[in-house]
């Protein structure tokens, strides 16, 4: 019964319960939540894909496609930290649950084959634009909606 003072104190004080989801407290600014990409800034270098410990990012430089499996992502932020153009960001809230598996697919403008770039990634071919744009957009919309 030595626990009695503690329970009495608890009884007299307001419950410690945070009333989530009715009241949502201010998130911590550093929190590594939902990963998203500013696709326009991406240069499709593939660093994120190579560094990702979960190997859940795929970058198709030729088509200008960047995709990530948010279900396999471990929210470590390595990709964000190593992206040379800082185009990957993480929200300070978690990604919302989903009733279906989704794939984040973003379609951007593949970089023009420059000479410098060509050294690193040989023979990047010019690509007819926006063939799959619609599909990519709709999936993106789907992903964001949830």
């Amino acid at each position, binding site marked *: 019964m030595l626990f009695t003072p*503690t329970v009495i104190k608890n009884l007299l004080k307001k419950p410690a319960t945070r009333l989530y989801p009715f009241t949502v407290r201010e998130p*911590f600014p*550093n929190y590594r939540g939902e990963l998203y990409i500013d696709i326009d800034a991406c240069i499709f270098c593939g660093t994120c894909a190579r560094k990702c410990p979960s190997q859940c990012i795929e970058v198709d430089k030729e088509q200008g496609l960047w995709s990530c499996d948010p279900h396999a992502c*471990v929210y470590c*932020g*390595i990709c964000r930290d190593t992206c040379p153009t800082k185009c990957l960001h993480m929200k300070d809230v978690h990604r919302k649950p989903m009733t279906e598996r989704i794939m984040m697919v973003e379609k951007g403008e593949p970089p023009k084959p420059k000479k410098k770039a060509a050294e690193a990634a040989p023979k990047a071919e010019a690509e007819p634009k926006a063939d799959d744009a619609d599909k990519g957009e709709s999936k993106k919309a789907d992903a964001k909606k949830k």
Partner: protein
Amino acid sequence: MATTVIPFGPQHPVLPEPVHLTLKVEDEIVKEAIPALGYVHRGLEKLAEIRDYHQMIQVCERVCGICSMIHAVCYSQAIEELMEVEVPKRAEMLRVIWSELHRTHSHLLWLGLFADAFGFESLFMQFWKVRERIMDINEATTGSRVIVSVNVIGGVRADLSPEQIRWILGEIDIVEKEVRALQDTIMNDYTVKARTVGVGVLSKENAYLLGAAGPTLRGSGVAQDMRMLGYGGYSELDFEPVVETSGDCWARSTVRFRETLQSIDLVRQAIAKLPEGELAAKVKGNPPEGEVYMRVEQPRGECVYYIKGNGTKHLDRLRIRTPTFANIPPLLAMLPGCELADVPVIVLAIDPCISCTER
């Protein structure tokens, strides 16, 4: 004839992790306990062959999500020793701070689960309530509550600002006060003592010979704490291993309770001695050929990493021996003869983490 065979696990409410014990009991006295493992085995040591040595940090953190930080520290230190990287002093001290915060949250978590094991639900709630402050510190300073991902080879990825430090000091003061308020209950309450004193006794010799680790070993009177090796920033801090001598579940819980307070104190010391400087050293190239054997103290005890490099970015062999792995033989020795109702108490008293046992 009146033997009851109880399949204790793999899915069992007092074992949040899947592990199995076949218990043979008579009049609820355990006569025999045979374990079955493998429900959590993933084979992650083998992942070192397909992930590079940087990525393996994130994998090693997930050997166990409770002391993730300390796994990452152990792995990083091993690679740093292999590659002869000099870690900046500030990074070492920051590692200590987060490690000790992890130990605090792990012990508070354990104390709660332990209370739950003997059916003291309110005490469980109270410990976990206190623990949330530590989780908030983790989240605010590293970006994640449990698996904090702040280690990199050569140092750390996050820093503490002066405001954060002030806030942390305030928070851990509150935590310490609230934890101390529970001391009487966990150590002296009649019903708690009735369920823990003299239960699952492990003598000093047995603990040593059976290879027990961590609080299980220290609860039996062996003063062994890997932090005394002085790795990382620990060489500059002032502390003694926490030891109890009765070797029963009460001793183990008391060791952990006192270590919680010790960890809070270590956080304070580390913050006081936090030097200015770089966060991470530059690391170039791949781990060379060679072997390294690294030991650190996790909340559950001594954790051992053995790494064999081969000059590529993939490791030749990564071998992890976690404390629970070491504590299972003592557990098997403690169970026969106890009451069925004491099984959860004794099992919890080694603070089992099956995830890291099986990897």
